C-alpha cells in the first residue's frame, strides 16, 4: 500500500507550509509541495491550504490567491470531492474562491490575536474530523488579525441547520465571529476551513501546549487509506 499523498500549497507569502507538511508527515502521509503558479495537482489525494499572508493580504485576504493558476485545478477538483483543508489564510482563500460560504473580516478587537484557544468539535462527520467526537473540546492556537466569520442570515441559518458549523470557539470569542464560528464545511463535507491551526498542535515539544490537532491528519489518512 502506498502512502496517502497530501498536497501542501505555497503561495507567495504563505508562512505555515513547513508546519503543514510536518503535520502531514507525522501522521504517516506523504506531503507533496504544490506551487501556486503550477496548474498541476500532481495527483494528490487531498490538499492542505496553510496559513500566511498570501500576496501580502493586499486588496483583501485571499482575494488575489483565488486567481492563482493552481486554483484553476483545485476548485473543480474540490467540487468533485477532493478533500481540501484550509486553515487561517487557507480558510480565507476557500471563502474567496466560493468553495465555502461567508467571509473573514477584521477582528472585532482590531488587534492581531495569538493565543491557545478552546474550541468544540460540532461536526465529526467531515473528511478532516472523523477521528474526533461531536461535542469534544480541544485546544488549538489561533493567530490572525482577520478571522471574524460573517455571513448573511440566510447562509448562517443554512450552515447551522445543515450541521455545517464544524468548530465553535469556547471560553471567549477571539475575533467576534458570528455564532462563535471557528470553522465550517461545504455541503459534501470534503472541504473544511477554520481559523485555528491544527498543524501547530501536533507535537509535545513545540507549538501550542496541546496535541489536539493530530486528529485532522489521522482523520484524512484513515479516509484515504480506506478509500
Amino acid at each position: 500500500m502506498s502512502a496517502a499523498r497530501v498536497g501542501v500549497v505555497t503561495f507567495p507569502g504563505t508562512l505555515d507550509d513547513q508546519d503543514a507538511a510536518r503535520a502531514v508527515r507525522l501522521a504517516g502521509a506523504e506531503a507533496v509541495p504544490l506551487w501556486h503558479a503550477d496548474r498541476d495537482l500532481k495527483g494528490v489525494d487531498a490538499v492542505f491550504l496553510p496559513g500566511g499572508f498570501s500576496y501580502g493580504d493586499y486588496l483583501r485576504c485571499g482575494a488575489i490567491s483565488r486567481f492563482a493558476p493552481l486554483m484553476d485545478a483545485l476548485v473543480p477538483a474540490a467540487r468533485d470531492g477532493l478533500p481540501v483543508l484550509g486553515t487561517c489564510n487557507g480558510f480565507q482563500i476557500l471563502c474567496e474562491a466560493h468553495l465555502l460560504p461567508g467571509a473573514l473580516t477584521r477582528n472585532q478587537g482590531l488587534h492581531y490575536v495569538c493565543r491557545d484557544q478552546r474550541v468544540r468539535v460540532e461536526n465529526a462527520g467531515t473528511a478532516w474530523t472523523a477521528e474526533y467526537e461531536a461535542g469534544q473540546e480541544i485546544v488549538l492556537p489561533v493567530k490572525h488579525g482577520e478571522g471574524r466569520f460573517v455571513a448573511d442570515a440566510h447562509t448562517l441559518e443554512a450552515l447551522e441547520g445543515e450541521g455545517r458549523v464544524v468548530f465553535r470557539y469556547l471560553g471567549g470569542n477571539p475575533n467576534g465571529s458570528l455564532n462563535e464560528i471557528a470553522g465550517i464545511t461545504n455541503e459534501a463535507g470534503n472541504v473544511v476551513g477554520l481559523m485555528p491551526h491544527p498543524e501547530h498542535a501536533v507535537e509535545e515539544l513545540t507549538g501550542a501546549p496541546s496535541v489536539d490537532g493530530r486528529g485532522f491528519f489521522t482523520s484524512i489518512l484513515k479516509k484515504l487509506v480506506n478509500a
Partner: protein
Amino acid sequence: MTVDSVKRAAETPDERQPYTELGMKDDEYQRVREILGRRPTSSELAIYSVMWSEHCSYKSSKVHLRQFGTKAPKSEALLVGMGENAGVVDIGDGWAATFKIESHNHPSYVEPHQGAATGVGGIVRDIMSMGARPVAVMDALRFGGATQSDTRRVLPGVVDGISHYGNCLGLPNIGGEVAFDPCYIGNPLVNALCVGLLRKDQIKLATAPGPGNKVVLFGARTGADGIGGASVLASATFEDESQAKRPAVQVGDPFMEKLLIECCLELYQADVVVGIQDLGAAGVSCATTELAAKGTGGMHVDLNLVPLRDPSLRPEEILMSESQERMMAVVTPGDIDAFMRICEKWDVPATVIGEVTDTGRLVMTWDGETIVDIPPGTAADDGPVYERPFHEPAGQAALNGDGPERLPRSSDLRETLLTLLGSPNLASKEWVTSQYDRYVRGNTVLAQPADAGMLRISEVMPGAEETTRGIALSTDGNGRYAKLDPYAGAQLALAEAYRNVAVTGAKPLAVTNCLNFGSPEDPEVMWQFAEATRGLADACQILGVPVTGGNVSFYNQTGSDAIHPTPVVGVLGVIDDVSRRVRSGFTASGLRVALLGETHEEFGGSEWAHVVHGHLGGLPPRANLDAERGLASVLVAAAAEGLIEGSHDLSDGGLAIALAESCIAQGVGASVSLPVEDAFVALFSETAARALVCVRPEAFDALAELCGRHDVPCYGLGTTGGTSLVVEDAFEIPVGDLREVHSGALPAIFG
C-alpha cells in the same frame, strides 16, 4: 538640470556645499576635500555624510567598543566576530547561529508603527546577508510612564508595527522585554533582535572580489523614503521639529521581505552569490562602499540603472534613500542567468547596476557623466574617530549616597507583593505578546513569558541532517541600575540575560548588545557610555562569552534630558538535547521548591523602591559574576541530567515576584518558607545570581549535591501544590487572585 559631476567639482572649487545641513562638522568636510584633492560632488558629499554619521561610523563609540575585541574571552565557538553584518557562532553538529540586536529608537518616536516595523525588517536583512535563514525575532522595548499620554500613542503603534511586520514575515517572536520609565517619554527605545541558522560552511560575507563580477541590486525598487534618515534622524537630537522630519521615516513591506528571504535562501542553495550586503541605513551608499572596500577594491556603478519607484529622484537622493527590502549581491558573469531566474521565480525584481573593478576606486556615473570617484575605504572604514571627553556626572556621588535604607518598609507583605505584581514593569506583558505570532514555522520550544525563547534546530531547513540541539535567547537591560552605576548596570544586564538562558537548560555561548545612551557630546553621558562598555567587556571576559556584534544608539535625549543609560544585552545559548528543556515555573504538584543562590539586602534601583516610593538612589545589587557562572553550571548540568521539572530566574521584584509568576505559569500553588530571617529582604531584595527551581522529591538530594560541587547555596523552601501561594508566617494568596492582578494591569491602561 545640471549634474554636479567630478569635472564640474574640479572647476568650481569654491561652491558652497550644504554639509552642515547633512550633519557634517567643518573639519569632517575639510577632510573629505583633502582625501579627494578637490571639493566633493554633491553625490560624494551624500555618501560621506551618511557613512561618517554617528549611526554608520560609530565615531564616538569606536574607541570604547574596541575593548570587546581586546578583552574577548577565548571562544572556539566564534566563527565571525564584530565588524560584519552580524556575528556567527558555532553551535555544533555542523550548525552555526547568527544573531544581532539593533535600535530603531528615533524613527519609532516619530512614526511608531513604521519605525518599529522597519526596525524588524532591517535586522532580519542583516541576518539574511550572513547566508542564514532567519528563524526568530524578539524585541526589547522601553516606553515612558505607562499612564503618560504619549505612551498611549507610542506603545500601541510600536506593538502594531512589530506585529504587522513580523507576523506577515513569518518569523516567530519568542521573547523580549517591555519596560516603562518616565525617562523614556521623549525617547522610547525599540531594539529589535533577529537570530538565524545556517550550515557552518555556508557563511556569506559582505565582499565584492573578482574584477568583472556583476553587482546586482534586488528587492524593492528605490523611492524617496528615509532620505537623509541615517544622518538626520539617527544622529541628531529631537527638538520641536520632529513633525517636519516625518518623511524621513522609511515605510516597510513585509510581503516583499518574505519573498526576499525565500529568494535569498534559494540563491545561497544554488551557490550563485559571491558576496552580499543588505541595504539599511545609507542604502546604496553604504552597500557599494562597504562591498567595494572589502573586496578587490574597486566598483563601477551606473546609477541610471537603479530601478526607481519615483522617477524624479536625483542621484544624491538615490544614494541616500533608505527604501526597505533591498539587497545587493556580487555574482559571477557565469551565474548571472541562474541568479535572475531564481529572482524571477520569487517575483523579486533584480537589476545589474555595475561591476567589480581592480581600480581601487568606487566610480558612479549618471547620464554618462562621472559623479562619484572615491577610494571606497575612505568612506566605509576611515571615518572620523573621536576621543570624546568624559567625566563622572556632577550629581553621581549624591545619587549614590541617597540609598534606599531610609525608605519605610510596609509590614503588609501581601499588599506589597500585589502592588508590585500589578505595576506596569512587573505585570503580565500578554497585552503586547499576544499580538505576536510565536508559533509560525513550528520550531518554537519556549516563548514568552518563559525566561528565554528556545527553538529546535533540526527541522529548520528541510533536508539538513538531524540534530538534537536547540538554541535559547534572552535580552535584558535595567536603566535604573545603569543610572546608579553604569559599570555594574551593564554587567547586571548581561548577568540576567545569561541567567535567563541558563534556567531553560541552555549553555550561554555568545553576546550581542544594543547600547542606548544620550548625547556623546555631553561628557557626563560619555562617562556613562565608557563605564558601561568597560563593565560589559570585563563581564564578558569573566563569564567566557564573547561579544559578536551589536549596535550603539546615541542622542536619546530631548534638550538636556537624557534617558537612563540603557545597555540592552542579548545572550545566545545552546542546549545539546532540546527535549531536556526546562519549562517555566511550577509545572506540577508535589514537587520540592528550592532557591539557588545567596540573598542579601539590596534595594538600590529596585522595583520596590521605584513603585512604592518613586525612589532612585544608592547602588544597584552587586554583580557577582563568579556566582552567576556557578549557578549557570548547576542549571545546565541539572537540566541535562533531567533533575529539574521547572525553573524561573529571580530578578526585578525578587523572590516574591518569582514565586508569584511560577504559580501563575501553570496555575499550580506552593507552600514555602523564607530563606533568610528578615521576611521583607527575603521577598523583595533584588540580589543577582539566584534562581527558583522545582524538582521531584527524590531528585532533591542530587540537586543539592550538584549545587555543593559548584559552591551554589541551595535552600529547600517548600512544596508545590494547592491553589494558593502560601508563604509561612506571612500570607496566603489564591493563584487566581495573583493572576488577575498580574494580567489585568496593562489591559486596564491600554484597553
